[in-house]
């Protein structure tokens, strides 16, 4: 293990860690989980160039100590919450500024025994058993420096708990508004639990407070989908062109459960999305889709891992990218089918459209199959816009610009249509049409 890369940072980060351990509400289990995570982080250090998992996504900036690791207490509150609320009136809005829950702006029903939504601190005080059990349960299985650091020092984020048999029909929209002018590292950690036979839909949107904000988000969401529960979890990443965004979405599914997720990336400077789904009950179904439309010098890296541990499960993934200018993209999709996971159906497809000679896409499917009665497939294609289709449209009188736009929207539409929340879908269509102007 190499610790050299964090030497510059180590004392600043250690100070933050000590502060969390000593002052943040805790339980013995939580303390030990944080300490363990911090120990692993220290052993690993930030990933070096030689790390295969970060081959196409350089993390040098982290070892160069470009960030301020202390929590930024000065929350900028000249935010027009109403405009965010107006963008979708069919959901309950929750606002987080740098991960801190803004209760007075959020729609959280009190005395609601269907769903509990609170911040991590409140959850630790009110539900110490659940936090002791679930905080860092999934991160423990994920050998990644950023996720470990997050588990060690994150104090902000949401706890969402849906009681058994409860159907939450109105989607919850979590709006993250991130803000810092001091290159702050913002750590956010969600624990989401959908109990047996419950249903929950979450839309999670990431924004920057302004175009000049400059920060790094290191975000972890642990999602526990219990037996026969249904969870939809859709995400729009639309931060400013300075934003660095790393996230690990770590999902565990129990028997007969459904999980449906969509990661739409249009904003941000440098993004790494880790999405790990462990199917550890029989007959789970999971759909993981993604769309990135990027330009300039944007870099977006999607790493997915679907771990089929039990029989009769199905996973589907479709990731699409439209890359302009000098943007770069990565899709790395791992599928494990373990020995016991017979009758697995696992499909994966990555399709990308490069609109410039300088744009780059790296795709790497990785299938490891140890069961013998399974259906698995993967496919990957990267190409340019279809010239025959373009000519056909021009021959009908369409300008090259509107012909291209039509073709790009059609390309993106496959992913957008997988979204099950109508209001979010129509928002996405508007946003993407604007983005492809």
């Amino acid at each position, binding site marked *: 293990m190499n610790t050299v890369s964090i030497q510059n940072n180590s004392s600043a980060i250690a100070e933050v860690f000590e502060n969390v351990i000593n002052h943040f509400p805790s339980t013995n289990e939580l303390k030990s989980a944080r300490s363990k995570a911090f120990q692993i982080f220290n052993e690993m250090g930030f990933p070096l160039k030689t790390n295969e998992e970060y081959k196409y996504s350089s993390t040098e900036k982290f070892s160069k100590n470009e960030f301020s690791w202390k929590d930024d207490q000065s929350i900028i509150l000249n935010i027009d919450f109403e405009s965010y609320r107006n963008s979708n009136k069919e959901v309950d809005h929750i606002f987080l500024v740098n991960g801190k829950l803004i209760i007075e702006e959020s729609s959280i029903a009190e005395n609601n025994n269907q769903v509990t939504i609170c911040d991590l601190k409140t959850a630790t005080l009110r539900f110490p058993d659940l936090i002791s059990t679930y905080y860092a349960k999934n991160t423990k299985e994920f050998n990644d420096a950023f996720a470990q650091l997050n588990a060690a020092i994150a104090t902000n984020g949401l706890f969402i708990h849906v009681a058994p048999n409860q159907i939450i029909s109105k989607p919850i929209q979590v709006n993250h508004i991130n803000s810092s002018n001091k290159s702050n590292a913002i750590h956010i950690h969600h624990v989401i639990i959908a109990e047996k036979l419950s249903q929950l839909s979450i839309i999670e949107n990431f924004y920057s407070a302004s175009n000049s904000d400059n920060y790094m988000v290191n975000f972890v969401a642990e999602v526990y989908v219990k037996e026969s529960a249904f969870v939809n979890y859709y995400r729009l990443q639309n931060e400013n062109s300075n934003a660095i965004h790393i996230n690990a979405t770590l999902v565990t599914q129990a028997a007969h459960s459904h999980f449906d997720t969509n990661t739409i990336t249009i904003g941000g400077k440098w993004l790494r999305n880790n999405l790990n789904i462990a199917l550890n009950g029989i007959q789970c179904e999971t759909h993981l889709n993604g769309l990135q439309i990027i330009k300039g010098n944007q870099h977006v890296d999607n790493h997915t891992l679907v771990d089929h541990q039990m029989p009769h499960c199905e996973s589907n993934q479709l990731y699409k990218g439209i890359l302009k200018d000098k943007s770069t993209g990565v899709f790395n999709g791992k599928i494990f089918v373990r020995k016991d996971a017979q009758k697995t159906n696992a499909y994966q497809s990555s399709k990308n459209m490069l609109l410039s000679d300088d744009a780059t896409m790296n795709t790497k499917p990785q299938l490891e199959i140890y069961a013998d009665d399974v259906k698995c497939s993967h496919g990957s294609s990267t190409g340019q816009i*279809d010239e*025959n*289709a373009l*000519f*056909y*449209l*021009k*021959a*009908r*009188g*369409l*300008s*090259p610009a*509107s*012909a291209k736009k*039509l*073709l790009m*929207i*059609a*390309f993106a*539409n*496959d992913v957008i249509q997988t979204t099950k929340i109508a209001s979010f879908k129509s928002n996405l269509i508007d946003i993407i049409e604007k983005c492809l102007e």
Partner: protein
Amino acid sequence: MLSIKNLRAAIDDKEILKGFNLEVKPGEIHAIMGPNGSGKSTLASVLAGKEDYTVTEGEVIFNGKDLLELSPEDRAREGLFLAFQYPVEIPGVSNINFLKTALGEIRQYKGLPPLEAKDFLKLVKDKQAMVELQGSLANRSVNEGFSGGEKKRNEIFQMAMLEPTLAILDETDSGLDIDALRIVANGVNQLKRNDRAFVVITHYQRLLDYIIPDFVHVMYNGQIVKTGNKDLALELEEKGYDWIKKELEPSI
């Protein structure tokens, strides 16, 4: 309306059109026949502005404008329409949405206001009926999953929507059964007007029983080598093209 003089065009340095001449006046229907590889489809592609071809010589004047100077979209906006031999499937782009955009841009080019939504929908309904195209097809992605006959009818539907002054039909009849052929021909006949002309490229005389041409041209080796009336098509159907090739031989 259309005047093509000594047109020479090549693809990948291979000359396909070798001094092609044609005069089309408003209201006329011209049929172009000829053996495979004589350059019929190349002619259609060059006129529509496909970038793969290089025009090396000659001129094409369309409604007083130098056609070869225009972009493909401006040719369409000036009133040229090509019914493709192989209509392209465009997954995810709805027929209606794309025609709305096309019509909007053509009208804008001509300085006309955009059509009201209800007028556009009425137009769609009327024109669909004309080519007996099911409403569900118009709402589907462009040509995706269409049968051969549906694709060709969709071309005629688009033609009816865009109301060109000159329509070039590139083997629109190929692969059609007799019912589909009648529907397509019927669509063309309904669109016939004194100020509109058609150039019909075909392999088969049969189409010309339904679309009566004013002129039949035989194309061979990149040129028109014989011109006649509809009886010439019947003669070609009966005797094939060899006799024309033989006629040409002494001059070679």
